[in-house]
């Protein structure tokens, strides 16, 4: 039985008992309003806290502890969900019942989390200088190297172009170089104290565990009451009437064409299922219009797909093509959207897309990572807490007319083209 408990104001614990997995997954989500000023700090914090702590003064000490806990996985990731930023501390341990001898890996794993988060490598209210400088340098190098991953680079450039009204949405979830420069070992520690005290905290434990024992262990964490966050999760910006376009030229073999479309439909809000279907038919499924027409019929790309960000009302299209074909590819993409909006797609494609989305949803239930992230999202958007049967029923009920109506709300806003000039082969 699922147990939900408020450990303090703004601090929740959910225990999801299951025997499906051989592991227990523990996630501590720290949730804050998305702000340009804090994204980079949170990203650097994730690196620092993963590196060492007072109890594990070197990386080798920290890694050795995880090895001793039978290869426990520990990591911190940062992500955006609409107007919030989520700092997720994740630990996965093997269930003690599968390990040789009498082990207490879960108890020790939770104690480890408490140590690394609440006894960081700090003296005199500053992060350890050597650790801080090293991680800052490494992060700077990492941020610079995003340029070397052309798919990621093009997708970030498109965001830059589309989110005209929001600095925070333009900053990548993992931060940027300009903000990094300003961070010091003491300013970061000050921010960390604020994060621990003020962020909303959502803890989830998934596995074959005793809910009472887990609750007792987690109640021990020094998480005090905090004021509720009233941020509206869904990001909205006014639509523009003329499409923004930008082209960059770089020495690559393949050019990237990425497009951004606005939609007025949000996660589990009215018309959500219809828009999910519209995106699936457009470019979000294996037999989609984009895949069939850009790749299979015209032979112009290896990948051509769309994805739907239901927290920001955004659909993006991504393709990798020959620069010389850009006009033709743009034309085909525009035609596919028009086809979708005119309802000129087969019932067969509609049925395939429904079956695909249903399969995707149910398949997610086999992933511990998906289940814990779904739990977080359900807390953020209570309307999304639907049973599997309900999801399938709603999806099945979507009509062609509803899909067409949803498709007609898709508006092109921005086009980013990373053109290529032949690289030295």
């Amino acid at each position, binding site marked *: 039985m699922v147990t939900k408990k408020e450990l303090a104001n703004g601090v929740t614990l959910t225990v999801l008992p299951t025997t*499906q997995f051989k592991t227990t997954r523990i996630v501590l989500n720290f949730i804050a309003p998305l702000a340009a000023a804090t994204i980079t700090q949170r990203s650097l914090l994730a690196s620092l806290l993963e590196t060492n702590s007072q109890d594990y003064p070197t990386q080798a000490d920290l890694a050795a502890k995880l090895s001793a806990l039978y290869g426990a996985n520990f990591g911190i990731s940062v992500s955006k969900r609409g107007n919030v930023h989520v700092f997720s501390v994740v630990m996965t341990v093997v269930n003690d019942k599968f390990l040789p001898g009498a082990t207490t890996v879960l108890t020790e794993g939770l104690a480890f989390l408490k140590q690394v988060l609440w006894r960081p490598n700090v003296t005199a209210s500053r992060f350890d200088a050597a650790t801080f400088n090293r991680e800052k340098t490494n992060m700077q190098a990492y941020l610079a190297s995003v340029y070397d*991953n052309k798919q990621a680079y093009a997708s970030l450039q498109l965001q830059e172009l589309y989110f005209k009204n929001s600095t925070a949405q333009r900053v990548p979830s993992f931060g940027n170089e300009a903000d990094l420069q300003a961070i010091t070992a003491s300013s970061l520690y000050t921010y960390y104290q604020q994060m621990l005290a003020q962020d909303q905290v959502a803890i989830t434990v998934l596995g074959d565990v005793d809910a009472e024992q887990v609750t007792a262990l987690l109640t021990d964490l020094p998480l005090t009451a905090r004021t509720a966050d009233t941020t509206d999760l869904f990001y909205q910006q006014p639509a523009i009437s003329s499409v923004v376009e930008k082209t960059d030229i770089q020495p690559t073999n393949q050019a990237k064409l990425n497009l951004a479309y606005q939609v007025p439909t949000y996660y589990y809000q009215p018309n959500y299922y219809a828009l999910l279907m519209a995106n699936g038919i457009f470019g979000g499924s294996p037999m989609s219009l984009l895949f069939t027409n850009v790749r299979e019929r015209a032979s112009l*790309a290896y990948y051509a797909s769309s994805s739907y960000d239901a927290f920001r009302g955004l659909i993006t299209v991504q393709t990798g093509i*020959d620069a010389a074909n850009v006009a033709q590819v743009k034309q085909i993409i525009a035609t596919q959207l028009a086809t979708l909006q005119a309802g000129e797609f087969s019932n067969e494609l509609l049925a395939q897309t429904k079956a*695909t989305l249903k*399969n995707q949803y149910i398949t997610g239930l086999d992933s511990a990572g998906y289940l814990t992230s779904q739990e977080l999202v359900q807390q953020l958007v209570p309307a999304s807490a639907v049973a599997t049967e309900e999801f399938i029923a709603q999806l099945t009920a979507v009509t062609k007319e509803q899909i067409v109506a949803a498709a007609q709300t898709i508006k092109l806003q921005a086009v980013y083209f990373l053109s290529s000039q032949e690289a030295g082969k």
Partner: protein
Amino acid sequence: METTHYATLDETLYQQTLANGLQVTMLPKAGYHKTYAVMTTNYGSIDNYFVPAGGSDYTTVPAGIAHFLEHKMFEKKAGDIFEVFSRNGASANAFTSFTRTSYLFSATDNIKTNLDTLLDFVQDPYFTEASVNKEKGIIGQEIEMYEDDPNWRLFFGIIENLYPKHPVHEDIAGTIDSIAKITPEQLYQAYHTFYQPSNMNLFVVGNIDPVETLAWIEANQADKEFAPATPIQRQFPEEASDGSDIIPYRMTQLPVKRGKSIVGIKGLAPVSRDRAGLKYRTELNLLFDMLFGDSSQNYLQLYDQGIVDDSFGYELDLARTYHFATLSGDTEKPQQFSDAIISLLEKASDNPDLNANRLALVKKEALGRMLQSMNALEYIANTYSGDDFGDASLFDLVNIIDEITLTDIQSVLKQFVRSAALSVFHIEPLAGDDAK
């Protein structure tokens, strides 16, 4: 049907080789919603020189043909197989490696229908001039995409150094020029040679009843006629057993922001395709964990000196006819990186990280990771059908890890890490490239 229970993992494997030679393996997973099935032929990008089924002379085919064949298997006279899978709620895919080609689906419903689709489409080739030519544009873009990936370039850079003759140094997808030469006839020839049921295996994992599932598969196969199995004959260029033909160093300049360095070690002695081979691979993995893992003093020192960062990694690639290890990372100073790694490798036998306590620690970690991997159906199926150790498989790793001693580690170090087997490849940013 043969049944093996693995007590520590709490898993039971069911196996049967069918009359036509197809090897079927099943792993029921209670509590899971999906079923994942992967059908694999023991044929990959390196198999470019072979005797065609029914023939008597060796033939050479263009690089990239196994991967091309994989793409074209999905297109039939009646249409696209993705459509058939989609209709039945399955998500399908395929991949080609140096030594294997695999076709797979994952579904939560209509498992019998989807299994029939998988078996039927893999066992029914259909290639035409027009469809083959059309695919050249698509695969051409796939090749261009990988060309732009500096990590891919780094990896192939070191393989080209280590294997100047063996076709493992060729890109799995081939080149724009090599795929231009591919014809439907060549695809049929490769198909009939390597897609014989006796050269293939099928792994099904998930929410299944193995008896029922096997009955479905047997019924499907009983309905078809197969040509009698013919022995597969393939050859590979001979490489110097003392490593003397390895290119010790090359570098290239690319339009990247950060440089990269990779150190490769070529396995000079062949590895047996049995439990001893799997043990050898496991010993090498533990050796590298001890020397370069997160918990090693070596890694800590390299990290603190700024020689490596989180992009550092090492891996072992071991398959039919070749094996090599690589250690790589992003760096502003590729030369410093490779010098430091080679210096550690050459003096490894005296390295303080090679001690009994650390072996116990990395063994604990390896056991835990093995147990964690039992959650991942795709990982289990792909690893099982990709490995080539006779009766031994990843399910034997619990016992193998347990058996390994410090003496084993010392001896595998001596056998594998030899100065003559080392090579280095660097990627440096183009001089004067100050791209924003």
